[in-house]
Structures are given as C-alpha cells and as structure tokens.
C-alpha cells in the first residue's frame, strides 16, 4: 500500500506543520518552535495512537480543507470548529474516518484561535534539526501550507485503545489570568510598576503571532536604562520594551533579547495563551520562585 498523500484544498489564513519543536538548539540561535497549543496536539496524537512526536497541522482562526487520496483517520483538537466530511457533520475532538478522495473541512474557530488536525501516521514532510515545525521567526522547517500542496503521511499506527476515543478539552479562555513567575529582571519594575502589574488589565493586541502575544494597555514603568546587553530568553518570558507594553514570548521567540524580562508565564498556561484571540483581557498573578529567598 503506497503512503497516503493529502491535498490542500483550502490552505486558510496561516496553516503550518507543527510538532513538539526543536528544543536544544537555542545556543545556535534557533527558536524552540512547535505547536503553540502543545496540549491539543498531544491529545490528537494520543487519540490516534500516533507517537507523541508526530507532526500535525496548526490552523489560525479560519480552519483548513484537505482531501486525502486514501482512507485516513484524523482528529481535530484545540480551538472548537465545525468539522465535516464530504459536507456531512463529523466529530470535533474525536477520531473521524475520511475515505480516500473525501473532502475534510475544518471551519473557522468557534472560540479560541488555533485548531489542530492530527492525522494517523503524522505528516512526514522533511524535518530540520529533528523537527517538522515551521518557525515563523527564522523560516526553518516546512513552509506554511498553500492551496494545491500535497503532504505525505507516515504509516498508519495500530488503532489505540477505544477507551480514549473522546477526551475532555479545556475551553479556550474568555480571559487570561496568568501565573507570572519571577523573571531575571523583576527588580527593574519600579514600585508603581509592581503594583500596576498586580492590578491592571491588558488586552491581546492584533499584532500578536507565533512569536509572541503583544499586549495593549497601561505602560509598565521601569527603573534604569531600558536596554540591556543581549541575554537569552525562555518561552513564556514577559519582556517589557521601552513603550512599557509587555510582550509574552511564545514558541517562535528570538533566542536572545535586549529588553528586561520581568517574569515568565507558567508553562502549563501557554496552551491557553495560544488560544487567546486579539482583544482577550489579560491579568497577571505574580508568584515568587521559592529558592530566591
């Protein structure tokens, strides 16, 4: 049996191949990349019996349409969306059989931002530095999907135990209340900045992308000069540029930066950040790292 290929019928606004990313190359200037909502991609792979490092498709707001040339099992996770096969409604969040030549359509996100299409066998386009993730910042990995592309799938895995056929997924957030752990330059927050950080509400700006969530709202006042010498950034770092509007770095973030990082979002909350639409309110709950005191 020859491997199944999937034709991209409608690429959508920004649909990319994503997996767990390429950690371990930050010292070469390579961002971690990978699915922004790792929880959603991991669930899709688990429901299909794929290995956890299998690659799927990450959509942005308006879904995607694809047509496999052979029978194919898929799961849509992440942002809830209407799913159909040849025009007939199909399940979101549970395995769906698509016949060879059938049209799988994932509609616009009903809530949240990014839906994930996992396919049995995974997408097997060429890996770069051990990952098939497209990196928006550096351009590494396979290019974003274009209508007419054909994407090869890997060998279909044995069906997983049926007990996990449906799994609960957290609803995308109406607002983000984020745990903000100590960052290296927390002491650059002036007293007024520290109290503003606890009390203010920002909103997700429309200029946000896979690199980071840009926030609109009050400017955080900082002590001292705005710029530092370049230092390495972690995913979830909250950086305060000279205009005082915080930026939450997501997985395509630059590996180094020159503005103070006042805190770091709890990794468990980054999937929610991935699903936050422009306009979503954002508040921070600062938390101390125990060993510093």
């Amino acid at each position, binding site marked *: 049996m020859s491997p199944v290929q999937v034709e991209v019928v409608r690429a959508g606004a920004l649909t990319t191949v994503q997996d767990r990313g390429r*950690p*371990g*190359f*930050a*010292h*070469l*200037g*390579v961002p971690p990349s990978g699915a922004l909502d790792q929880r959603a991609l991991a669930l899709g792979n688990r429901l299909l019996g794929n290995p956890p490092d299998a690659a799927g498709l990450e959509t942005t707001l308006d879904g995607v349409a694809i047509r496999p040339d052979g029978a194919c099992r898929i799961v849509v996770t992440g942002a809830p969306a209407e799913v159909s096969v040849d025009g007939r409604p199909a399940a979101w969040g549970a395995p769906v059989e698509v016949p060879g030549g059938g049209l799988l359509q994932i509609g616009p996100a009903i809530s949240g931002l990014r839906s994930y299409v996992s396919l049995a066998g995974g997408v097997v386009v060429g890996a*770069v*530095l051990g990952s098939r993730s497209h990196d928006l910042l*550096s*351009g*590494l990995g396979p290019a974003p999907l274009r209508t007419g592309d054909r994407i090869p799938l890997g060998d279909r895995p044995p069906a997983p135990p049926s007990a996990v056929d449906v799994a609960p997924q957290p609803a995308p957030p109406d607002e983000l209340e984020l745990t903000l*752990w*100590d*960052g*290296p*330059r927390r002491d650059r927050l002036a007293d007024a900045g520290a109290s503003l950080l606890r009390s203010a509400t920002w909103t997700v700006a429309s200029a946000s992308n896979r690199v980071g969530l840009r926030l609109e709202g009050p400017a955080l006042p900082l002590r001292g000069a705005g710029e530092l*010498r*370049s*230092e*390495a950034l*972690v995913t*979830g*770092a909250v950086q305060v540029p000279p205009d005082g509007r915080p930026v939450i770095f997501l997985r395509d973030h*630059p*590996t*180094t930066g020159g503005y103070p*990082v006042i*805190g*770091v*979002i*709890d*990794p468990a909350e980054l999937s929610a950040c991935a699903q936050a639409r422009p306009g979503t309110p954002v508040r921070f709950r600062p938390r101390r*790292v*125990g*060993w*510093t005191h």
Partner: protein
Amino acid sequence: MGVLIRRVLPAGPHALLVELADQADVLGLHAEILRRLDSDDGWPWPRPTDVVPAARTVLLDGLEDPAPLAAALPGFDVAPARAPDGRTVRCPVVYDGPDLDAVAAHWGLSRREAIELHTGTEFVVAFCGFAPGFAYLTGLPPEREVPRLETPRTAVPAGSVALAGEYSAVYPTRSPGGWRLIGRTDLVLWDPGREPAALLTPGVRVRFEEADAG
C-alpha cells in the same frame, strides 16, 4: 581568582540566568558547564535542555527544579577567560562593504588600516542569537566599538561581514539588519543539513583573511 558569578537569577520555574562580570567570564563559565556536562560525574543535578551564553549571562533552561543547581553554581571553580580549546575557522573576506569607509573614519584610520585591524584580530564566538547561526564575535579592543546604523537595512545579503557595538559578525542568511557592513565571504555559515548546522558556535575562534574580489 576564578570567574566572578555576580548573581544567579530566576528565569521562571525551570530556568536560571547566571550573571557575570564580563564576556570573558561568560566564555569561561560556559566552557566549564559544557565540560562538566560531558564528564561522567561532574553534573549530579538534572541536565538542562539548553545552555545559552550571551553578553554577560549564561542561561540554563529546562530544569525541573533549578534550586539545587542555583545553590551549587557559586561554588564552581572556573578559570577566567580561559582560551577556548575549540577549533579555528578561517574566513576569507572581500573587504568592499558599503560601510567600510564610514567605519574606518569612525576609528580615525585609513581604509587599509581598518582592514588590517579586522584581519589582525583574533575573534572568539561569544554567543549566537538574532537568527540561526548568527554568531557574536568578540576580540575587538573596547575603544573600537562601532555604533549601529540609525536606520537598519531591510535586506542584508547572506555572507555579509559586519560590525556593531563590541562585536563582529557574519550574516548567515539574508535578513534585515542594522550592523555596519565591511565585506563579504563565501563561507556557508548556516546549513541545517550539517552537524553542527552553525559553522560558528560558542567558543570557536575566527580569523578573517583578506581575499581578492572575484
């Protein structure tokens, strides 16, 4: 005297940022961390996923619990500015960059003297950042710092040899950039199919050599 660790700072729940006095101490601590990670018994703590040097800091990321390592780091015995035992990359350069005359004027040197300053300097890769394979090379004397362009170029060709601040660099891929361009090289700085993908990795020595235009 060993390397002076000024502070060990938290970078969220799973990372540490070690702050040092200068670039030489960063190179020293980075080399010591890699040496310990490579040895059988030099690293009793959980292993980091990433060790990322920068200008005055070294980040250790991907630590389940950073506390024990944070407590141990100040006790590391590190030789300062130890010459990196890495390889030397010879980089042929055609010195015809659009900013070469401006850089020479900034230094108060002739064009020829500016080229000789660049080829006569032994550079070391301090760290990578900005783009995959973009290496910040130290070695210029402090009085030879060069200001960035006020308006960055929207496209700098791959292989452009450049200066900014205390660093020299070679653009590994075509990208926007605010560094001053003094020349160009044919060396392939970045090739994801190569191991390592970056030609210039932290600790590597670099000598620029003047090449004929052609």
